[in-house]
C-alpha cells in the first residue's frame, strides 16, 4: 500500500477520532460530576445535528444570500445553545431525580430517553425517517496528490473540534468554575460544604457536555454530508466505549479512547485480512478484550471500595 493512501486513511481516522472524542468527553464529564452514564448522549448528538439542519433551513429561508461562513457560525451556535438547554432540562427532570437510584436504573432510564429522542425525530421531524442531506457549508477546496487528497473542510473541522476540546479542558483545569466542577466530581458533599452551588455546577456540566455533542453532530453532518435519526445509537455506543476504555471520569482518557476506537475501526477496515464490513465487529471485539485486560480502562478511576 502506498504512502498516500495510508496517509488518507490516517486522516480519515483522525477525523473520526475527533468526533468520537467530542462525544466521549460528554460521557466522562457527566460521569465525573454525578457518577452516572447518560446513554442518551449519542442521541443528543443526533438531535444536535438535526437542530443545526433546521437552523440552516430557517436561515436559508430568511436570508438566502448569507455567506457560508456566517451560516455555519449561526448553525453551530444555535445547535449548541439548544442542546445545552436540552442538557439542562434532562439533568433537571431526570438525572438529578435518579441520583439515589441503582446505577442500572439510571443507565436504563437514559437509554429509554435516548430511544424517545430517536423515535421523536423519526416520527415527528418532517420526513424524519429518511436520511437528510446536510449542506456543505465549508469550502470544498482540496489538495490532491495521487491517492491523497488533503481537504480544507476536514482541516477546519478538525481544528475547530480540537479547539473546543482544548477550551473545555482549559475551562476545567484553569478557571474557578472548573475548580468547582472538579470539586463536585471529587466529592459532592464536601464541595457543597465549601459553598459550591451543586445544582448550578451539574447544570453547567450538562450544558457543556451537550454543547460538545451538538458540535459533534454538526461535524458528523458536514463530514458525511448527511444525517439520519438512527446515527445516535452507534455514536452513543462508540462514545461510551471510548470513555470507558480510556477510563471514566478522565478527560484525557476520553480523548485517548476516542482516537483509539477510530484507530481500531480504521485498522479493521484497511489493514486486516477480512472484509472492511467487519470493522465494527473487530472494534467492538477489541473493546471487549480491552475490558478483560484492563477492567477499568487505560486510565483507571481513582476509587477504593469502602466496606
Amino acid at each position, binding site marked *: 500500500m502506498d504512502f498516500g493512501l495510508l496517509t488518507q486513511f490516517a486522516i480519515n481516522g483522525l477525523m473520526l477520532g475527533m468526533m468520537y472524542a467530542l462525544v466521549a468527553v460528554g460521557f466522562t464529564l457527566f460521569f465525573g460530576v454525578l457518577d452516572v452514564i447518560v446513554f442518551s448522549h449519542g442521541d443528543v448528538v443526533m438531535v444536535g445535528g438535526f437542530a443545526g439542519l433546521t437552523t440552516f433551513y430557517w436561515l436559508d429561508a430568511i436570508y438566502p444570500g448569507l455567506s457560508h461562513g456566517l451560516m455555519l457560525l449561526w448553525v453551530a451556535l444555535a445547535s449548541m445553545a439548544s442542546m445545552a438547554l436540552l442538557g439542562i432540562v434532562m439533568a433537571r427532570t431526570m438525572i438529578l431525580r435518579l441520583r439515589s437510584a441503582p*446505577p442500572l436504573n439510571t443507565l436504563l432510564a437514559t437509554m429509554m430517553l435516548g*430511544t424517545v429522542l430517536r423515535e421523536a425525530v423519526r416520527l415527528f421531524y418532517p420526513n424524519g425517517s429518511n436520511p437528510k442531506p446536510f449542506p456543505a457549508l465549508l469550502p470544498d477546496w482540496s489538495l490532491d496528490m495521487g491517492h491523497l487528497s488533503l481537504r480544507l473542510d476536514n482541516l477546519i473541522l478538525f481544528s475547530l473540534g480540537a479547539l473546543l476540546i482544548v477550551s473545555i479542558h482549559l475551562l476545567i483545569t484553569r478557571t474557578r468554575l472548573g475548580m468547582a466542577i472538579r470539586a463536585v466530581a471529587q466529592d459532592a458533599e464536601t464541595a457543597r460544604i465549601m459553598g459550591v452551588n451543586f445544582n448550578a455546577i451539574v447544570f453547567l456540566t450538562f450544558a457543556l457536555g451537550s454543547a460538545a455533542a451538538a458540535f459533534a453532530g454538526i461535524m458528523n453532518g458536514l463530514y458525511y454530508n448527511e444525517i439520519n435519526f438512527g446515527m445516535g445509537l452507534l455514536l452513543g455506543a462508540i462514545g461510551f466505549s471510548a470513555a470507558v476504555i480510556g477510563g471514566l471520569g478522565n478527560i484525557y482518557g476520553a480523548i485517548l479512547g476516542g482516537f483509539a476506537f477510530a484507530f481500531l475501526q480504521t485498522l479493521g477496515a484497511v489493514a486486516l485480512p477480512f472484509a472492511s464490513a467487519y470493522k465494527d465487529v473487530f472494534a467492538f471485539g477489541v473493546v471487549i478484550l480491552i475490558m*478483560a485486560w484492563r477492567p477499568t480502562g487505560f486510565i483507571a478511576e481513582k476509587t477504593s471500595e469502602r466496606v
Partner: protein
Amino acid sequence: MPGSIQHNASVPGAVPNPGSAAKAGPLAGIVAAVAVTAYAAAFLLSESQGLILALLVGGAVAAGLAVRVGAHRAVARSLAAHGRLGDGLAVGMVLALMVIFHDDHYALFLVATILLYVVAVLGLNVQLGFTGLINFSCASFFGIGGYTAAMLGGHTGVPPLVILACGGVTAAVVGSILLLPVLRTSGHYSALVTMAFALLFKVFMEVNDAFGGPQGVDVAPMRLFGWDFSSDVEIGSYTGSFYLPYVLLALALAVGAFVLVRRIERSWIGLSLDAVRVDEVAGACFGIDIRRWKITAFTAGNFLAGVSGALYAMMLAYISPANFTFADSLIFLSILLLGGIGSSWGVVLATAVVVVVPEKFQVIQEYRFIIYSSLVLLMILFRPMGLLPRKVRAYRRQA
C-alpha cells in the same frame, strides 16, 4: 459502587411475609383467573381499534378498582394459601385460550410468542434480577439460539428436539466468551461489555454470508415423533391451526423454565445469588464463591434465552439479524423492569402486555418504541419496583 443495594433489598429472612393467612379459600384465585382469561380472549378476539381501546381503558379501570377495594389482596392471599393453584390456573388459562382460538393462527402465534419471550426474560431474570449481572445482549443470545436452529435444521439431520437443547448450549458457550470480561468488570464497565457484544453480534450476522447475511435465513420447522409442525392439526373432523403444537411446546418450555427459575430462587442457590447481588463483599465473607455463582447465573440465563430463541426461530420459519438488535435487547430488559426486577410472575404479566398490546392496537404500532421507552422511563422515575414487585423471602409461616 455506591448504592449497590438494589431494589427493595430482599435480604433473606429479614421480614416474614405479613399477608400469608392460611385460611383463604381458592375461590378468589379461580375467579380472578377466569376473569383474566375472559379478558385476554376478548382482547385477542376483538378486531376494531375502538373496541380494543375500550378494553384497554376498561382493563386499566378494573385493575385500579380491584386495587382500590382490596380485591388484589384477597387474590394474593388465596393464591399464597394454595401454592400450586396459581401455577395450575396459569396453565389452564393458556389451555383455555388454545381451545378458544384453535383455528386462529394469529392469536395462537401471539400466545406462543408470549410464552417464548417469558422463557428468555426468565433467563434474564436469573442474571439481572437475582444475581445483579447486567446483560444488554439478551436478544443476541436469543438470536444465537435461533441461528443454531437454522443451521442445524438446514444442514444436518439432528432431531429438532435436540436442536432446541443445542440452541441453549450454543448460547451458553458463546456467552462464556464474555465471562472473563464480565467477571473482571463491574457496574458500567460490565454494561459496556454486553452492549458491545450486542452491537457486534448484529453487525457480524449482517456481514457474514454463511449465516444468510442481512436477508436472513430459513429455518426448518419443528418435528416431533414424525409429526410436522408446519401443517395444520387434524384429528378426525377437528381442525386446528399449525400453531397449536407450537403453543403446547412453548407452554411446556415456559412451565419448565418457570418451575426451574422458581426452584432456583427458593433454594440455597437463589440465596447465594441474592447475596452476590446485594453485597459481594459480605457474601464472600460468608464463604459464597462470587465467581462461581456469577458464572452459573450468566450461563443459565443465556441457556434459557438460547432454547427459547431456537423454538421461536422454528415457529417464525425465517429469521434475520434485524430480529435480534440492541433495541430488542432493550425490550427484553424493559419487560423485566415493567414486571418488577426479580419477580417471575411480573415477567409473565409484563410480557403479555408488551407483546400483545402493540400487535392488537395497530394504531400505536408505529409508535410502539416511543411508547415503550416513555413507559419504562416513567416506571423507573415513579415506580421503580415494577408492576408486581418481587416479594421478600419468607421462610417461616406466621402462626
